[in-house]
């Protein structure tokens, strides 16, 4: 109770060894962190095996949706772009997907989650280039590269 947000740097030791992930801020601090961040960029959605199965045919999409080019390919993990910019998708334990844009509900497929993210983009606005990297830091560190 005595820790302020300035104290985010306090108490970072894992609750259980190996359980806690490196935060984005940690990762971005220092040379090692910078290298790590760059190394992780291509891995957009490293996912755990899910309880429900995945349609094996559903491994790629490439279409124009509401004027936006959306592209996704499942290479161990989903790598998705909207107008060429990375969209970070996250997986729920039930096998559904959510994106950084639409974060408080999930969709049955990566394609639907991507379309839902486009639905939320205002005309003329784009994803920030940093999204893929920022999102990747969610899983960061030792737990980010299981794909």
């Amino acid at each position, binding site marked *: 109770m005595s820790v302020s947000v300035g104290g985010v740097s306090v108490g970072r030791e894992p609750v259980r060894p190996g359980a806690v992930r490196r935060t984005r801020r940690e990762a971005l601090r220092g040379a090692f962190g910078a290298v790590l961040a760059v190394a992780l960029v291509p891995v957009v959605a490293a996912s755990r095996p899910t*309880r429900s199965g995945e349609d094996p045919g559903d491994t790629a999409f490439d279409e124009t949706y509401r004027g936006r080019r959306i592209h996704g390919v499942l290479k161990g993990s989903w790598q998705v772009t909207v107008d060429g910019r990375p969209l970070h998708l996250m997986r729920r334990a039930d096998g559904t997907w959510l994106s950084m844009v639409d974060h408080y509900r999930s969709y049955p497929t990566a394609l639907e989650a991507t379309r839902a993210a486009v639905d939320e983009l205002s005309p003329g606005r784009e994803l920030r280039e940093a999204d893929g990297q920022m999102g990747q830091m969610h899983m960061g560190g030792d737990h980010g590269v299981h794909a």
Partner: protein
Amino acid sequence: MAYTRKDVSTLTAAEKRRFVAAMLEIKRRGEYDEFVRTHIEFFVPDGEYGLRSAHMAPSFLPWHRQFLLDLERALRRVDSSVTVPYWDWTRDRSASALPWTKDLLGGTGRRSDHQVTTGPFAYAAGKWKITENITDEPYLTRDLGRAGAPIALPTRSDLDGALADPVYDVSPWDSTCRTGFRNRLEGWGTGSGSASWRNHNRVHKWVGGVMLGGASVNDPVFWLHHAFIDLQWSRWQNRHRGARYLPAKPPGPGDDQEGRVVARQQRMPPWDVTPEQLEDVSRIYRYA
């Protein structure tokens, strides 16, 4: 001595003014964006590896309780009279009434791009430029009630459904739990219909704009919403005397959730605090 968090509909003109001024000041100092980043960083979903402390996890409530305390502490360094008000969305359900007034949070976004153009957090007012975001807007966005495909805020009955559950949380301690107070309140459901997002989650969706995404903290209403969520934890404790935070002990070897959730007496990142230490905050603040 404990301070009081008030219902936003009961704030005086001076209290609103001072809350807004303190928010703008911590934004100016650069402290506010740290909160936005922290929230983005700690959204670890349950379909991926790693410890989940903020969402889809039992510590959803204590994590946001500590997050609110930190924000409040920052505000009170600016003005010691300020506390975070709560927005009771079961009662204040209009997109044009509090907290969406010009003297507090401003209103919904304009139709063309959802940019908020009224109130102290409007971009044109010059004091609330969004720098940590998922999309490239530098301005606050909202779509209250989702004008294009309207949805309703959760009701008193929806909230009561969560409060009535006598068990804090259940295995597997994630977004798939169909019972337990925590997930009934956090609001992860099954399927893809509107029933799949309830209570806490549904309010994020109702506000729309930046509140819908990972950078939801950019909208000051985040704090008023989460103060009300936090109040529900206290109400639940009052209703179910003796009921405690669960899990009491960490999931053991062989449990899929081992190392992925915070047990009652474990440290809850990023803080050096345990859920147990946050179960009773009556010496810090109370709700009016």
